């Protein structure tokens, strides 16, 4: 093999990391400047940190509500999708079901539709059909949590399928012989082995739900608005408040970064999971 050249590879990784980070860094720079400092020759250094973009956003009660809504919706959706996908992939992997490969493919077709396709019917359903007395699905958290399943569940199922298929059947059979029922096989054998895969699935579905914009913007008005819709509100017909938009964008990054930081270990474990062969 070739000689390892640590300095060269280090230089390469530092360079490519700078390219990756630069847009985010620039967003941070914009968020830390006032209107006057922004224009003219781009200045990459932050001489004085202009905090008003952040304080004004953070102290806004509407923004606080957006943030809480986003956290609640993304977390509930990720948990729901991961649990349902585990059950579904277990069934697809271990049971002889008529037409199950078609069912498997059908799930992903739900993810294919351009979101614009579903906006109109969902808007009408949420405002006129899914109504119980005074309560309607429009502008509720539960409405978005269930709706996000349409694109997150297929993703979770397609990711978990190979993970569950990769767990040797002999293990379930051995457990069954030892007297475990289906539920015990699922919780005592499959669940621990699939944990890295489940973690990765949960994290990615969380991020997708957190990031969704189009449905959240169309199907909510006041109570269930999420942070991404709040971000787009800074672009108005009369001009854009660049500084505050950048500050809000930075704030939408924070939870995603925390999740990524915590989950890094699991993502690595989940990635190498496929390497554990019988």
């Amino acid at each position: 093999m070739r000689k390892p050249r640590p300095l060269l590879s280090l230089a390469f990784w530092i360079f490519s990391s700078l390219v990756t980070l630069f847009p985010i860094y620039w967003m941070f720079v914009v968020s830390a400047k006032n209107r006057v400092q922004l224009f003219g020759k781009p200045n990459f250094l932050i001489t004085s940190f202009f905090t008003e973009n952040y304080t004004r956003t953070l102290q806004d009660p509407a923004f606080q509500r957006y943030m809480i809504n986003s956290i609640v919706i993304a977390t509930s959706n990720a948990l729901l999708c991961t649990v349902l996908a585990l059950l579904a992939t277990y069934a697809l992997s271990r049971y002889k079901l008529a037409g199950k490969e078609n069912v498997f493919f059908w799930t992903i077709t739900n993810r294919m539709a351009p979101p614009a396709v579903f906006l109109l019917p969902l808007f009408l359903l949420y405002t006129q059909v899914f109504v119980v007395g005074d309560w309607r699905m429009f502008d509720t958290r539960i409405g978005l949590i269930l709706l996000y399943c349409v694109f997150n569940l297929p993703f979770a199922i397609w990711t978990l399928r190979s993970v569950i298929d990769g767990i040797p059947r002999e293990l379930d059979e051995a457990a069954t012989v030892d007297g475990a029922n289906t539920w015990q096989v699922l919780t005592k054998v499959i669940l621990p082995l699939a944990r890295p895969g489940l973690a990765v699935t949960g994290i990615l579905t969380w991020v997708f739900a957190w990031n969704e914009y189009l449905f959240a913007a169309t199907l909510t008005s006041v109570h269930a608005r999420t942070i991404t819709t709040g971000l787009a509100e800074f672009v108005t017909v009369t001009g854009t408040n660049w500084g505050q938009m950048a500050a809000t964008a930075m704030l939408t990054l924070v939870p995603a970064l925390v999740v990524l930081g915590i989950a890094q270990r699991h993502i690595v474990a989940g990635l190498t999971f496929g390497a554990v062969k019988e």
Partner: protein
Amino acid sequence: MRSSAVGWLFLAPTLIILFIFGVVPFLYVLVIGFTQWNTFAADPTMQFNGVENFRRLVFDTPFLHSLWLTLRFAFFVVASEIMLGYLLAQLFMRDFPGKGFFRTIHTLPLVIAPIAVGATWRLLTVPGLGPLPYYFRTWFGYDLNIGRYVDQAFMMTVVMDVWHWTPLVTLTLLAALSSLPKEPFEQAQIDGANRFQIFWYVTLPMLKPAILATVFIRMMDALRTVDEVWMLTGGGPGSATRYIGLYIWRVVFPKTDYGYGSAMSLITLYLTIVMCWLLYAALVARRDLKRVEA
């Protein structure tokens, strides 16, 4: 041995949710697609008009243009992302100092909301504020203005998408690469194969299912991109980046032409499914082949 009733029970919640929030709206679109329904028209009620909407589609030049743009966009982003992602995945297979740290940095764009990605790239490219137009002008004398030049706007949406989604390709291909058995590589080396031959005859065939699956996922998402492009260019200049999702949105919401918008959605959905089905068929054929060999 295993009753299929239990299997269906496990699948039930998934199928119910996908039915209510996926199939029901779809059926709704299917009905509306065959009607004339525009709340701003002279007659705002829903009226059945057969295949009129679909006939209109075939002669709708802006629609066909959007479709072509979307396909071109999907082709460019998927091709670039697969090549770049594979390269990075291969490089991540080696050991070097700070590997975990660099991998985290290279995963970062993936977790950013498309709307925030659009905002970020807008901040980079707005004339007068963004550093990209400034340095392109002072260093190369090149006028970068995605609000004015059609090709630049298209290229910038591609660059943005590549920046955003290459990490996903890197991660999936890295997972696939690290799950490959070692023996074939050692065998090929013993047999005296050079690096290109190893890549072409050993790595590539074994990675093919993973690459196809990644192309499949990325193509599907590229065909439906809306938010980040909307934030970056708003579909402009003119209609240069008005990809199909943006076009449908314009017809359905500001113009409230529900019937025509629904017909357009149906055709788009149909084309997407056909393209993905072809890819999936390739995947399944491969899997069956493996089963036969085993």
